[in-house]
């Protein structure tokens, strides 16, 4: 297998899932592509928008590191991680990960791994602005616990 590709994008702009997946499909040895797309949900008290802050100096390196960990664990031909920041409205896409492999299990597991690590190890913070005011989204204990199944850290 040739060297796996890593594509990391941190941007205010939207992305195109079809284009990203098609790029990962290229190459004769990719049989399976798994994608995860996260999207701004509406909340009970009416979400006006979500503000996503990040740590510019650290974000690219943190996402690349997570992608490299996935490549070290599974036989992947490519990994893509895209995360937006700035002002996002209900229905907007927030982020995506995608993995390509010969085998479906490797593609599924590595995509779930990327998501679990991205939730708790990539420097993004979400603030919700609703009709009732604004507040930072709290981290979930379950997100930290999700890392246990991969043996941390």
């Amino acid at each position, binding site marked *: 297998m040739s060297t796996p590709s890593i594509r990391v994008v941190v941007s205010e702009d939207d992305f195109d899932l079809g284009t990203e997946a098609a790029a990962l499909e290229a190459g004769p040895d990719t049989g399976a592509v798994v994608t995860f797309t996260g999207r701004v949900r509406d909340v009970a008290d009416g979400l006006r928008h979500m503000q996503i*802050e*990040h740590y510019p100096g650290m974000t690219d390196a943190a996402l690349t590191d997570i992608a490299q960990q996935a490549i070290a664990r599974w036989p992947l031909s490519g990994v893509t991680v895209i*995360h937006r920041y700035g002002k996002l409205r209900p229905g907007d896409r927030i982020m995506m990960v995608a993995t390509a492999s010969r085998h479906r299990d490797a593609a599924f597991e590595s995509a779930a791994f990327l998501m679990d690590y991205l*939730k708790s190890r990539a420097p*993004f913070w*979400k603030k919700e602005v609703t009709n009732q005011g604004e507040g*930072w989204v709290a981290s979930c204990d379950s997100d930290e616990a999700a890392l246990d199944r991969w043996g941390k850290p």
Partner: protein
Amino acid sequence: MKLQVLYFAWLRERIGLGREDVITEAATVADLIAELRAREDRYDLAFSDMTAVRCAVDQMLMPLDTSLVGAREVAFFPPMTGG
């Protein structure tokens, strides 16, 4: 030594700034936090619940007892909520 100190999310909001230069002789991140808390109430308040504070030294996630020898940039922030 001179450190660039960064704050994100509600730490940034409580302290009222996103970055500042700090002249300090603190040996560890925890020492630096103690110095900051002694300065002003807004720092003391921001760091009052340390279970909710994470830190990065030179852009790598690190525990609070990390040495500051050779460090140039220290960032403080709540647990991450990406994805």
